[in-house]
């Protein structure tokens, strides 16, 4: 039997993960609504003064995105680990690193991308100007894949471990700090009318680094977990 | 550096709380670490060795 090419397998993994995720729609929607609720809670906690809301909006939206991303990460490898699929993926002729990229991409499509799409609406709650809303979408678009790629490492390390959710948060949140700083920083700069290209460049660099190193570390962690 | 008197030394120019607070906590941390390590060692020496035949079988060591 001829070995399957890389691209078809890559696409197949994505298709499979998407199908499974859409079957468990509640999981996906939970993350989404968690994001919305958390962001909406802040004005209730800090008051509704416009100028203050506008200044905290970038941070609030970004931290909520971090937390929502972490909620979703627990699911990335867990069910495959439980039913043995992960072992099969590791044993397959295709490099595990690429399969991990496929899984993370599928995961991002259902948990990261919705956040990107709904963020502008939430930004309106905080009275952000249109330009800032656009930058917010852009930073989340570049940043959420970063979060998924970095978070995948933590998800793989905590496979089958008791208290995985909390432990995952502890492991991964410190690693998220640069993405948070530059993502929220870009939006703050946009609100203040200052140039954002610097922030966006660094954010892009973070994505590149995460793309190159993240899946490699995640694959190593997966192998450690299934040994 | 000459302190006028023992009182002056302990007063630290008004910053006694901060200076001694910092050093006290540092000392407490070090002593606690040493004490915990000693206690861990003592527990080990008191407990009979678990001989279930498998060399290197052990519990996860997450204590300080």
């Amino acid at each position, binding site marked *: 039997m001829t070995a399957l090419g890389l691209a078809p397998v890559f696409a197949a993994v994505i298709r499979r993960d998407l199908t499974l995720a859409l079957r468990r729609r509640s999981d996906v929607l939970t993350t989404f609504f968690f994001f919305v609720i958390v962001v909406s809670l802040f004005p209730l906690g800090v008051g509704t003064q416009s100028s203050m809301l506008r200044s905290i909006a970038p941070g609030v939206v970004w931290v909520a995105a971090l937390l929502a991303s972490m909620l979703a990460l627990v699911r990335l490898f867990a069910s495959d680990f439980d039913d043995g699929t992960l072992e099969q993926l590791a044993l397959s002729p295709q490099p595990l690193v690429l399969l991990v990229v496929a899984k993370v991409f599928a995961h991002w499509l259902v948990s990261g991308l919705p956040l990107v799409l709904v963020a502008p609406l939430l930004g309106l709650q905080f009275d952000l100007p249109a330009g800032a809303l656009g930058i917010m979408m852009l930073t989340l678009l570049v940043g959420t894949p970063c979060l998924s790629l970095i978070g995948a*490492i933590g998800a793989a*390390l*905590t496979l089958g*471990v*008791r208290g*995985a959710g909390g*432990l995952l948060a*502890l*492991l991964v*949140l*410190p*690693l998220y*700090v*640069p993405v948070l*700083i*530059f993502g929220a*920083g870009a939006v703050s700069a946009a609100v203040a009318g200052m140039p954002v290209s610097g922030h966006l460049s660094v954010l892009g660099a973070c994505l590149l680094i995460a793309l190159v*190193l993240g899946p490699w*570390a995640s694959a*190593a*962690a997966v192998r*450690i*977990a299934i*040994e | *550096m000459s*302190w006028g008197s023992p009182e002056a*030394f302990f007063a*630290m*120019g*008004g*910053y006694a*709380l*901060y*200076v001694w607070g*910092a*050093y006290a*906590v*540092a000392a407490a*941390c*070090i002593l606690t*670490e*040493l004490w915990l*390590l000693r206690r*861990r*060692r003592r527990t*080990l*020496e008191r407990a009979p*060795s*678990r*001989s279930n*035949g498998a*060399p*290197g*079988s*052990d*519990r*996860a*060591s*997450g204590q*300080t």
Partner: protein
Amino acid sequence: MRLNVWKYASPPAFYRLAGNLAPWFLGLAAALAATGLYIGFFVAPTDFQQGESYRIIFIHVPAAWMSMFIYAVMAFWCAMGVVLNTRLSFMMALALAPTGAMFTFIALWSGALWGKPTWGTWWVWDARLTSELILLFLYIGFLSLHAAIDDTRRADRAAALLALVGVINVPIIYFSVKWWSTLHQGASVSLTRAPTMAATMLVGMLIMSLAAWMYAIGVSLLRARTIMLERESDAEWVRELSAERR
């Protein structure tokens, strides 16, 4: 007789060596600390700007330096363990972590106590302190991950991977936090910048740093021995050891 370093990769040999060396390191640490503190409190003059509160640097700076140094050494042993597949390397990393976390905590606590009289607030969001805080989380994450996994071999390797990911991230985190703090505070607020530091202050700080280093080595060697006993409790050499003691 050629010194064969590899012989110390064997737990019983290392156990004996560590047991012999540890008291010397701890003794040296005590002597250096006594000297350093003497210089810090009885030789170094009062600071022109900060009065006596600056004397916290004699514990703050050494603790901060050690917290970072120990993490790097810990990551080194993790890498050694992964590459050479030696049990002892992982044990050494695990032995270093609690001491590193302790120094990080001391750095944070003393930093806060220094910040209050100097800058007015208990917590100063400057780059170094914030990075120290994140470093503390990295240490706690390492220890928590190791504790959460029951299988020792898997725990060692998972924690090692985490430490290596962390060590790559620490510079990235530091620079992003540094950039962020200058943005939010204008002029950079550095708790450890003392351009006009008197020579005696510097000497005191360096001696205290050496003391902290010696202490870290001593305590880690002792902890490594305990970890070894815990893990190898069924091994021949451990049984002989406990028989000897009785």
